[in-house]
């Protein structure tokens, strides 16, 4: 192939592109995406593997990032072919050694010196009394002389090897002479030597000379892979001259006749407008090649237009099937939107998908699909129609097409059978209006099969069931909700905090999960449900805590016992999770890290923390040391907000909070609210007797006011952006004013001046 300049085309300026993703890669490294994330139509089930690199890939040039490895793409073929030719006279190891070893100078010495080759001390001695082996050596002798000019480099770490030089004229001449010496009787050897001439010419000073040489000599050759590789050199020579019409016509021939060359031909093909494509088509009278022209143009431009053209030329062309996989995969990419929540309603879902289907294409595919006899793979066409019918809500017709597909598919083709079953499931589920015993019975086996696929998925299995599997859950959850069954709706497709913040639903879920008599259908979903009872109790305790209902919070937390092997991001320790700092601290400066590293005589767990708070609250209610107890409770409520040192308290898999800066909107009213801290600081304030005590509370009230301002200003979007260096960080808080005007003679005032720069600046300014 035309390696040298392909190499340049493939090269992507590194600093400018690759690193572009750097800033974001960090944040979304966990996201998993595969073709099955938006697709249920597995192209591997329908067309042969030579088309695979050109399957539709929304974000890559070639499917699975298939890389065109110019240097070694034919290595295996070459070995195989020589093996057949030489029989047992040369071992496969020796073939590998002589044919593929591109670096070792020793190899060079071995095959050029006949004596050395026969020398027993050589790694792989060759017996020259066998005429075929002798030819092998003759071939190596020539090929290894040309190779340094044609492969992109020998020793990667040698700069000299990267400096490309052209095959000298004398070597081209030598190749031609050697080829002339061979006779066409030994077809294999004849082809190989001929190919060396083309190769030498292509990488010589006169690249264009391959064109005439090919025209003069090619008629005597077998139409094997070497022939089409040679033809591709000719195409490359035309391409370099800017004659894209001829280049495209020849690449199309290689594409059509040599499946191994499909990807590289597609890569080299230049997509063209209609006027030019007509010119390309007029170069050949071969229908297969014409179809290939359309197949490659369709890869780049318009699959539908190309399909129509191919169908008119040859309805049985496999290129036609391949384009249909691309068209369907593209359609799915538009219609199937991956999501982790249920649909707003099933009607809304139907509406959304219907509007995006091109009816002209649909009608055409449907009419073609009846051409059973002539199509190369009629099963796929039936399935394509059925799939679109499902999207359009025509389930009855979809059933008919699915049945026809099933009748045409051979039972041994497991992937194809799986594919049909998947569409049958989608079709059935789409028609569900309510989940009753009958529906459960109808779907149980199918869904068990489908979910089992997800649980033991092998990456080698191309079958695309991911999207369908998620979609089924989202859809059935929607149906449950529309039929007033929020519990099953949650189990099938969890909404997490928005469900559990409703304590009534939380209790109903607990009762349901404790039940043992449920249908096998329900059990299928319960098995996959992501929360356990400890998650639920813990979440409930947290919700109750933020309602200042400590008694109930303690009761729930007591039930949140540690779970072994929990998926909980902490360690599954629930009530015994240890708070990192002292949650009763009330400092001038909020510094979580300082509080976490500070020495603590008592370490609180979630549960012991709640119990300690309760003890203090009881004292406040009994009127014992109200100031101190209320102050400490106020601190505890402060520390269990986002601004405090006890974020561990609200880590919970249902709330889906782990102490980060970005807080889910649904949790914001709990985790960002200063209301409870304020309530207890106010109680402490009304019990305060000394100026020192009052000074402290004035300052704490300023902290609350500040946090409320930060919440409003910097936590107002879904993603936490933080403040910018010239954004407002403090204002004239009321607490500052009181502290300065009334309590500037206190010790606490002086401490604040020393520790809090904002207050110090305020005190200077006003």
């Amino acid at each position: 192939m035309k390696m040298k300049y392909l190499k340049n085309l493939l090269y992507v300026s590194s600093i400018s592109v690759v690193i572009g993703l750097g800033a974001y890669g960090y944040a979304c490294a966990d996201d998993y995406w595969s073709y099955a994330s938006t697709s249920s139509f597995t192209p591997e089930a329908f067309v042969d593997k030579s088309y695979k690199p050109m399957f539709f890939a929304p974000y890559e040039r070639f499917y699975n990032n298939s890389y065109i490895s110019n240097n070694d793409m034919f290595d295996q073929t070459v070995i195989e072919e020589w093996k057949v030719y030489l029989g047992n006279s040369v071992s496969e190891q020796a073939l590998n050694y002589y044919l593929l070893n591109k670096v070792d100078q020793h190899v060079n010495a071995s095959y050029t010196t006949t004596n050395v080759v026969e020398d027993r001390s050589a790694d792989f001695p060759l017996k020259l009394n066998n005429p075929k082996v002798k030819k092998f050596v003759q071939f190596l002798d020539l090929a290894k002389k040309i190779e340094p000019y044609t492969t992109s480099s020998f020793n990667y770490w040698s700069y000299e090897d990267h400096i490309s030089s052209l095959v000298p004229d004398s070597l081209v001449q030598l190749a031609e002479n050697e080829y002339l010496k061979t006779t066409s009787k030994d077809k294999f050897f004849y082809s190989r030597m001929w190919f060396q001439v083309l190769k030498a010419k292509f990488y010589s000073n006169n690249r264009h000379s391959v064109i005439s040489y090919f025209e003069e000599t090619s008629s005597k050759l077998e139409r094997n892979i070497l022939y089409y590789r040679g033809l591709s050199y000719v195409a490359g020579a035309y391409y370099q001259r800017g004659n894209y019409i001829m280049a495209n016509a020849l690449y199309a021939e290689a594409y059509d006749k040599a499946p191994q060359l499909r990807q590289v031909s597609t890569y080299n093909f230049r997509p063209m407008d209609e006027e030019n494509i007509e010119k390309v088509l007029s170069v050949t009278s071969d229908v297969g090649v014409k179809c290939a022209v359309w197949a490659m143009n369709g890869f780049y431009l318009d699959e539908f237009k190309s399909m129509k053209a191919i169908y008119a030329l040859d309805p049985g062309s496999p290129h036609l099937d391949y384009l249909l996989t691309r068209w369907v995969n593209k359609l799915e990419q538009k219609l199937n939107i991956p999501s982790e929540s249920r649909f707003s309603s099933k009607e809304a879902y139907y509406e959304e998908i219907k509007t995006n289907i091109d009816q002209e294409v649909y009608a055409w595919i449907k009419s073609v699909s009846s051409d059973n006899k002539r199509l190369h793979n009629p099963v796929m066409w039936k399935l394509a129609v059925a799939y679109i019918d499902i999207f359009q809500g025509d389930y009855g017709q979809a059933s008919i097409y699915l049945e026809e597909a099933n009748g045409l598919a051979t039972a041994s083709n497991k992937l194809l059978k799986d594919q049909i079953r998947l569409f049958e499931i989608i079709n059935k589920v789409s028609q569900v209006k309510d989940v009753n015993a009958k529906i459960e019975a109808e779907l149980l086996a199918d869904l068990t099969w489908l979910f089992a696929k997800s649980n033991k998925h092998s990456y080698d299995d191309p079958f695309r069931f991911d999207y369908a599997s998620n979609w089924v859950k989202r859809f059935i959850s929607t149906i449950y909700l529309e039929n007033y069954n929020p519990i099953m709706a949650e189990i099938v497709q969890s909404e997490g905090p928005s469900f559990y913040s409703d304590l009534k639903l939380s209790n109903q879920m607990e009762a349901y999960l404790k039940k043992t008599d449920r249908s096998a259908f329900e059990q299928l979903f319960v098995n996959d449900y992501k929360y356990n009872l400890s998650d639920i109790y813990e979440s409930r305790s947290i919700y109750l805590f933020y309602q200042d209902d400590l008694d109930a919070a303690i009761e729930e937390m007591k039930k949140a016992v540690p779970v072994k092997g929990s998926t909980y991001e902490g360690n599954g320790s629930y009530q015994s999770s240890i708070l990192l700092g002292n949650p009763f601290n009330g400092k001038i400066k909020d510094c979580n890290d300082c509080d976490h590293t500070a020495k603590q005589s008592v370490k609180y767990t979630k549960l012991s923390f709640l119990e300690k708070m309760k003890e203090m609250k009881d004292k406040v209610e009994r009127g014992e040391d109200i100031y101190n107890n209320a102050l400490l409770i106020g601190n505890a409520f402060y520390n269990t907000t986002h601004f405090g040192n006890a974020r561990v308290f609200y880590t919970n898999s249902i709330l889906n909070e782990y102490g980060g800066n970005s807080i889910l909107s649904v949790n914001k009213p709990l985790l960002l609210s200063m209301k409870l801290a304020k309530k207890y600081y106010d109680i402490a304030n009304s019990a305060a007797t000394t100026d020192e005590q009052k000074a402290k509370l004035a300052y704490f009230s300023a902290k609350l006011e500040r946090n409320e301002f930060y919440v409003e200003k910097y936590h107002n979007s879904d993603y936490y952006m933080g403040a910018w260096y010239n954004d407002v960080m403090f204002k004239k808080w009321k607490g500052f004013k009181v502290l300065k005007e009334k309590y500037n003679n206190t010790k606490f005032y002086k401490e604040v001046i020393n520790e809090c720069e904002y207050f110090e600046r305020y005190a200077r300014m006003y």
Partner: protein
Amino acid sequence: MKYLSLLIVIFVVLGCTDHNKNQQLKLSYYYWRTSYALDSVERKSLQDLSIDKMYMRYFDVVLKNHAAVPLSPIMFKERVDSTMALVPVVFIKNEVFLDSFVHPKKLASQVADFIIQINIKQNLKISEVQFDCDWSLSTKERFFAFVEEIKKNQPWKVSATIRLHQVKYADKTGIPKVDNGVLMYYNMGSIAADSLNSIYDRKIARQYISYLKDYSLPLNYALPIYSWLIHIREGHVVRLISRVRKEDINRNESFKLIEENRYLVAKEGEYFGQYFKQGDQVKVEQVTAQQLIEMKEDLIESSGSCPEEIILYDLNSKNIESYENEVFEELTICQ
């Protein structure tokens, strides 16, 4: 007396300003093509701006069958002016350090040797090298070991490119032990069909550069003067075409402006060497002169100091011609 007043003036200047502000910054270029040959515009720009330092991409290091190999080393079509201080830059794909078969120490000697081979072939002398690698949490140790090995065995000053996220998450991503870093102040978004500018977005930049003050490695800044066209079909990026600017599109009647920086292809055809379908869209990303100044000011403001050097990415007549010389001169002033 004359000397005394001069001393006073100096004292006053030093006394009332931040000592590292009000400097003249050095301006240099990145050269990022695979073969070296300058055209008259590029040559003139080097002269006009008195640029005497160039960071040249020497080669990339990529992974092939579990081995690190150099890719597309620079080829010289002409000699580099001997007065030009040349800094070879080696881009190492992160995947190289992800592979456990690659030994950082061995790679360091291979890379150093390859740089030396190029220098010998071209008779070039260098005193600094730069490594460009978007290292991640899982590769930082191996990349750092690589860099340290080079420093240990070679007489060169070593610098490294630094990405914005590496500044923000420095405590996690770590800081390589190099003599200085170059903050790449571009590539702020992904190349996408959306309306954002992936080259530069001040809002995104702001999420990162407040961390500059705490970054312990001295940084120079690389600023983008490049542009590209993003070819979009049905909401998906088809390809990038480098060095196309708005002016080029505006001259072509087949493109209709639909939004700022965004055009609709009204007529199918081949433009900029590629086929465009009717209905395709293109997005042109480039940075204005005003934004370049804004970048410099934001960086100085948030880091609180002047860098020694600003490096423009990249030296190419197509890029240079879109800016007045005065803009680049303005970049060299730090106040």
